[in-house]
C-alpha cells in the first residue's frame, strides 16, 4: 500500500525532529546521527517505493480539519511526478545529510541544525505528497519556516539575522497572493483536491481565469525566487552551505516549479506565456548578476535563479514535464556544485571570496573534479544530464517563442561564462591567499556525496540508464509532445550546434577573459564602466531597502503617531479631560455661600413653576 509507506516516509523525519528537539538538544553528535539515520531510512523507503513493484498511481485522503465550508484533508497523491520529485528530495537530501555530518562537524549548535534538516525533509515531503491545495499551502509555509530556521543558523552574524527575516518575509509576500489564489480556486471550483480540480478544469475550462493563474503564480514567484521576489535567495546564502545545497538549490526553491506542475491545468494560456517571459527574463537577469559576484555561493545562487528561470520558461512554454526534467537534473548538478563549494569553503577555512582562492585543483582534486563535472553539466556539455534537459527547453522555446528562445540562448552563454569564471579562478592557477594555500581535501563523508552526485549529474539525463528510466515516467508526456511537435527535428539539429557553441564560447571566453586563478576581477579592473553597468543590475536590493525604510516604516511611523495623536490623545485623553473640566466647573458652584445655594432652590422652583404653567415643555 503506497499510502502507508508514504505516510511512513513523511513521519520518519518528523519523529527524528521531535526526538532531537525533545531529548538531544545538548547532544549534537547523537542528534546528527539520528537525523542522518532518519534521512537514510526515508531514502531507502522512497527508493523501494519508486523502484519497487508497487502501484504507480494511488490517491488516499484523510480528513484533518473541518469548519463549515472548509475541509482540510491530509492526502497522498502518488503518481509519476511525485515519484520523481520524491527521488530528488529523498536521495539528494540523504547525501546532503551525509555531507553535513562532515561539514557541520565542529558546529556548536549541531542538534539544532540537524533537527532543522529533519523538519525540512518532513515539510518538503509534505508538499511532494500533497493531494490538495490546502495541504500544499500548509507544508509550503512549513518549508518556509524550516528555511528560516536554517538560514538563521549562524544567527550571531547580522547577515544571517537579516537574511532569514528577509527570506521569510519575501516568501510571505508571495504567499499572500498564493493563499488568495487557493481560496479563489476553492470557491470557484468547489474543491481543493488536485485530482478533482483537474477533472473540473477539463470540463469547465472557462472557469480557469487569469486571476486564478496569476494568484497561484505568486506562490511560485515567492518560493522559487522569481522576479520580482528573487531578492531573498542570494542573501539566504548566509546559511550553512549544505542548507544552501538542499533547500536553496535542489529542493525547496524547486518546489515552486513542482507546484506549478501539479496545478498546470489551473494556469491558462495567458498566464503561461507570462510565466515563460518571466522565466526567460530571470534566466538572463540572474546570469548578468552572477557575473559581478565574488562570493562563490552567491554566484551559485544567481545561477540557481537563472536555472529556475529556465524551468519556468519550460513550464510557460507548455512543457511541464521538461520543467520537471530540468528540475531533476538541476537538483543533481546544482547540489553537487553547492556541496563542492561547501567543500571548498570548508577546505579554505570558511573563505568564500573566489579571488582569494585559486589553485585548489591540486589541493582538492576530488572536489575539483566533481565540481568540474557540475560546471560542464550546467553548461550543457553533451551527454551530461544538463545537456538533455536544457536542450529540450531550448528546442521548445525555438519552436514556440522565438524571443524567449533568443533570451534563453544568451542566458546559456552567460551561464557557461560565469561558471567558467568561477571554476577557472577558484580551482586553477595559484593560491591567492593563506587560506587557499593551506587547503586540504575534505574527509570522506564530504567527498563521497560529491562523487555520487557527480555520477548522477553525468547519467541523470540518460533515459537508458536503469533506474533513471523510472524517473522519466514523469517527463515522457512532455518529451513526447516535444518530439512530435512540428519542426522538432530541425530545431534539435540547430540546437546541437548552438548549444555546443554556447558552452564553448562561455567557458572559453571566460578563460580568456579571466585567466586561471586570477587574484582580482579582470572585468572590474579593465572595464570598470561595464562592471559598474552590470552591478547596476542589482538595483532591486536598494529599491526594496528604500521601500522598507523610507516607505513602509515611515507609513508605520505616521500611523503610529496618528494613533497616539488622534486615538490616544484626542479621543481617550480628550474625553477624559472634558469630563474632568466639567467636574471642575461644577465644583466651582459649591463655593460655600448659603445665598448662592438658595438661589439654586429658587431656580428649581421657578423651573418647576414654569413647567406647571406649561411655559416649558408640553
Amino acid at each position, binding site marked *: 500500500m503506497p499510502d502507508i509507506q508514504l505516510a511512513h516516509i513523511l513521519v520518519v523525519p518528523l519523529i527524528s525532529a521531535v526526538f532531537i528537539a525533545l531529548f538531544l538538544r545538548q547532544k549534537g553528535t547523537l542528534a546528527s546521527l539520528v537525523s542522518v539515520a532518519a534521512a537514510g531510512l526515508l531514502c531507502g523507503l522512497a527508493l523501494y517505493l519508486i523502484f519497487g513493484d508497487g502501484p504507480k498511481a494511488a490517491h488516499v485522503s484523510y480528513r484533518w480539519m473541518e469548519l*463549515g*465550508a*472548509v475541509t482540510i484533508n491530509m492526502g497522498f497523491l502518488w503518481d509519476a511526478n511525485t515519484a520523481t520529485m520524491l527521488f530528488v528530495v529523498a536521495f539528494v537530501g540523504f547525501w546532503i545529510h551525509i555531507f553535513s555530518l562532515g561539514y557541520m562537524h565542529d558546529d556548536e549548535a549541531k542538534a539544532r541544525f540537524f533537527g532543522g534538516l529533519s523538519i525540512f525533509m518532513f515539510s518538503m515531503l509534505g508538499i511532494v505528497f500533497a493531494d490538495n491545495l490546502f495541504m500544499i499551502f500548509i507544508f509550503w509555509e512549513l518549508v518556509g519556516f524550516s528555511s528560516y530556521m536554517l538560514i538563521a543558523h549562524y544567527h550571531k552574524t547580522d547577515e544571517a539575522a537579516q537574511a532569514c*527575516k528577509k527570506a521569510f518575509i519575501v516568501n510571505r*509576500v508571495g504567499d499572500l497572493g498564493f493563499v488568495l489564489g487557493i481560496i479563489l480556486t476553492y470557491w470557484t471550483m468547489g474543491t481543493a483536491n488536485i485530482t478533482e480540480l483537474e477533472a473540473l478544469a477539463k470540463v469547465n475550462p472557462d472557469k480557469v481565469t487569469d486571476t486564478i493563474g496569476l494568484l497561484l503564480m505568486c506562490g511560485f514567484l515567492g518560493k522559487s525566487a522569481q522576479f520580482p521576489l528573487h531578492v531573498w535567495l542570494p542573501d539566504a546564502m548566509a546559511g550553512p552551505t549544505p542548507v544552501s545545497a538542499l533547500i536553496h538549490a535542489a529542493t525547496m526553491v524547486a518546489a515552486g516549479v513542482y507546484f506549478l506542475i501539479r496545478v498546470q491545468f489551473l494556469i491558462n494560456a495567458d498566464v503561461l506565456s507570462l510565466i515563460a517571459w518571466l522565466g526567460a527574463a530571470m534566466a538572463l537577469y540572474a546570469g548578468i548578476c552572477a557575473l559581478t559576484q565574488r562570493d562563490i555561493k552567491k554566484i551559485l545562487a544567481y545561477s540557481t535563479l537563472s536555472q529556475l528561470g529556465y524551468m519556468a520558461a519550460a513550464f510557460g512554454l507548455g512543457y511541464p514535464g521538461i520543467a520537471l526534467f530540468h528540475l531533476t537534473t538541476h537538483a543533481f548538478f546544482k547540489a553537487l556544485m553547492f556541496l563542492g563549494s561547501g567543500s571548498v569553503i570548508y577546505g579554505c577555512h570558511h573563505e568564500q571570496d573566489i579571488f582569494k582562492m585559486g589553485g585548489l585543483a591540486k589541493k582538492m582534486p576530488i572536489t575539483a573534479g566533481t565540481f568540474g563535472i557540475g560546471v560542464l553539466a550546467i553548461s550543457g556539455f553533451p551527454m551530461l544530464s544538463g545537456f538533455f534537459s536544457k536542450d529540450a527547453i531550448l528546442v521548445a522555446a525555438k519552436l514556440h517563442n522565438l524571443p524567449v528562445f533568443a533570451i534563453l540562448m544568451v542566458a546559456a552563454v552567460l551561464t557557461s561564462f560565469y561558471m567558467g569564471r568561477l571554476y577557472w579562478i577558484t580551482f586553477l592557477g595559484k593560491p591567492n591567499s593563506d587560506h587557499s594555500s593551506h587547503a586540504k581535501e575534505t574527509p570522506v563523508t564530504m567527498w563521497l556525496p560529491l562523487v555520487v552526485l557527480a555520477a548522477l549529474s553525468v547519467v541523470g539525463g540518460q533515459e537508458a540508464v536503469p533506474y533513471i528510466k523510472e524517473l522519466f515516467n514523469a517527463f515522457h508526456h512532455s518529451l513526447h509532445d516535444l518530439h512530435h511537435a512540428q519542426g522538432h527535428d530541425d530545431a534539435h539539429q540547430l540546437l546541437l550546434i548552438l548549444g555546443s557553441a554556447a558552452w564553448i564560447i562561455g567557458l572559453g571566453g571566460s578563460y580568456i577573459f579571466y585567466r586561471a586563478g586570477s587574484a582580482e576581477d579582470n572585468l572590474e579592473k579593465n572595464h570598470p564602466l561595464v562592471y559598474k553597468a552590470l552591478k547596476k543590475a542589482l538595483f532591486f536590493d536598494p529599491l526594496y531597502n528604500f521601500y522598507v525604510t523610507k516607505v513602509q516604516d515611515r507609513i508605520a511611523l505616521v500611523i503610529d503617531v496618528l494613533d497616539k495623536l488622534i486615538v490616544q490623545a484626542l479621543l481617550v485623553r480628550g474625553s477624559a479631560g472634558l469630563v474632568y473640566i466639567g467636574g471642575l466647573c461644577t465644583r466651582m458652584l459649591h463655593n460655600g455661600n448659603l445665598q448662592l445655594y438658595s438661589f439654586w432652590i429658587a431656580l428649581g422652583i421657578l423651573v418647576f413653576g414654569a413647567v406647571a404653567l406649561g411655559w416649558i415643555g408640553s
Partner: protein
Amino acid sequence: MYPETVLPVAFAIPLLCAFGTLIFRRDIETVKNLAWIGFLLPFVISVYAFLNFHPDETGYAFLSNPVDTGLGQFGIHFQMGLNGISMPLYLLAGVVGLAAGIVAIHSNFKRLQLYLFLMLIMHSGLMGIFASIDIFYFYFFHELALIPTFIMIGIWGTHERQVAAIEMTIYLTLGALISLLGIIGLYVAAGDGASLNMIELKEHLAAHPIGKADQKTIYGLLLFGLGVLVSLFPTYTWAPRGYGAAPTSNAMLHAGVLKKFGMYGLIQVAAPLLPAGADAWSGGLITLALCNVVLIGFVVMAQTDLKQMVGYGSVMHMGYCFLGVATFSVTGIGGAVMLMVAHGMSVALLFLLSNYVQKRTIILDMPQLGGLASRTPVLAACFVAATMASIGLPGFGNFLGEFSIFNALWQHSGWVVALAATGILISAIYGLRAVSKVFFGEPSKRLAEHWEKDAPKDLDTWERVPVFLLLAFMLLIGMKPLLVSDGINAHTKALGYYSHKPGDVTLIAPNVAPVHSSQGIQAAPEHH
C-alpha cells in the same frame, strides 16, 4: 463522576482555595499549595471534560441542574454546561490558567498571598464564563474575573501601572456596561416569559422573534460593548498599555482567556439570537475589523518596546476574529473560535516569554537588545515558536483560524480577503523583526555590560513548565484540529449559522459568486 457536578466543582475549587488563602495567609507554603490545587484541579477537570465531551441532542454536555439564586423570576438561573464552542475555550481557560498559576506561584512578589488570592478569584471566574449557560452568569463571571485584574495591575504592575489600571478599568467597565445593556435589551425584547438561559432563550426566540429594528439596536449595543472588551477599533488603547503594565501571570490570563469573553459573547449569544441585527451591522464590523488588522498592523510595526508590540499584536489579531464573526457563517465563526483558542495560548506564551526576556535584559526596547539566542537557546527557540504561532504558521491553530476566516470572508468580498490577508504579511514583518532584534546578532553595548555583571541563564525548570505546557497544547490543537473543530462545527451549525460548501453553489450557478450572507440567514434552517 456525576457529570452534572463537574463544572460547578471546577468553578468552586479556585474560589474555595482563594478563601483558603485568606485563612492561611500567614503561612506562605500552605498558600502556595492551595494555589496549586486551585489551578491544577480545574486544569485536570477541563482536560477530563475535553476528553469526555459527548454532547446530547441539545448540543450540551455536563449540564448541571439549574439553581435559582433569587433572580429566577427574571428568568435567571445558575446553570453550567459545555457545548462545542465553549469546550475548547474552557480547555483554554484550564490550560492557560494552570500556566499562569505556575508563573504566579513562582513569582517572588511582595504580598504573594494576596496576589494568589486574586489570581484564584480570577481563575474561578474564568472557569465560570465559558461554562455558563445563563447569559447573566456568563456576564457575571466575566466581571468576577475582571475586577482582580485591575487590582493586580494597580498593585503589582510596572512603572505606568496607575494610568494603565485606570484606563483599562474605565474602558472595560464602559464596554461591560454597554454589553450589559445589550443583554438586558435582549431579555426585554424577548418579551414576557423569556429566560436568559441560552438554550431556552433560543427556543423562545424561535417562537417569538424580535423585530428587526430592535435586533439592530440590541446587537449594536452588544457589538460595541463587547467590542470594547476585545479592543475593537478604535477602542483598543487600553490593551497595549494595560498589558504592558500588568504583572505577567495576570496579563496571560487576561489577554489569553478573559479577553475572549467578548468574542465568545458575540458568537454564542449575540449573533445567533439576533441574526437580523448581525446582518445589519456586518458591513460596519468588517470595516472596523479591517482597521484593526491593517492600521493597527502598521502601529505594531512602529513599536520598539517588546511588550507593547505583543500587546498591539494581540489587538491586531482580534481583528481577524471580528472578521470571522462578521461573516455569520460556520466557517468564519468556527475560524474565529479556533483563532481565539490558539491565539489565547500563543499570546499568553508571548507575554510570558517577553517577561523572561525582560528578566534577563532589564530593558525591553528592541533596538537595544540582541544576541540573546546564543546565551539562552531554549528561550529563543520557544520565543520563535510562539512568534511563529502568532504569525500563523501551520501546525498551530492560529493558522487554521485565520485560514478559515479568509475562506469565509471570500463569500463576502474578495477585496476584503485581500486586505485582511495583508495582515499575515504585516504580522510576519513585525514578528520576525522582533525575533531578530531581540535574539539574533550581537548584544548591544549596554546589554553586554549588563551581562558581564549578571550573565543571563537559560530557562530554569519552573520557567519551562508553563512554557512547555502551553506549547504542547498549542501544537496539539494545531496538529490535530479535529479534536476541537468537530465540536465547533457541530455547534455553530446548531446555532443556525450560515453554512454551505462552495460545491453547492457551483452546481447551481457556476459563474455567480457565492450568495451574500443575508440570504443565508433565512436559508440557514433549511440547510439542516
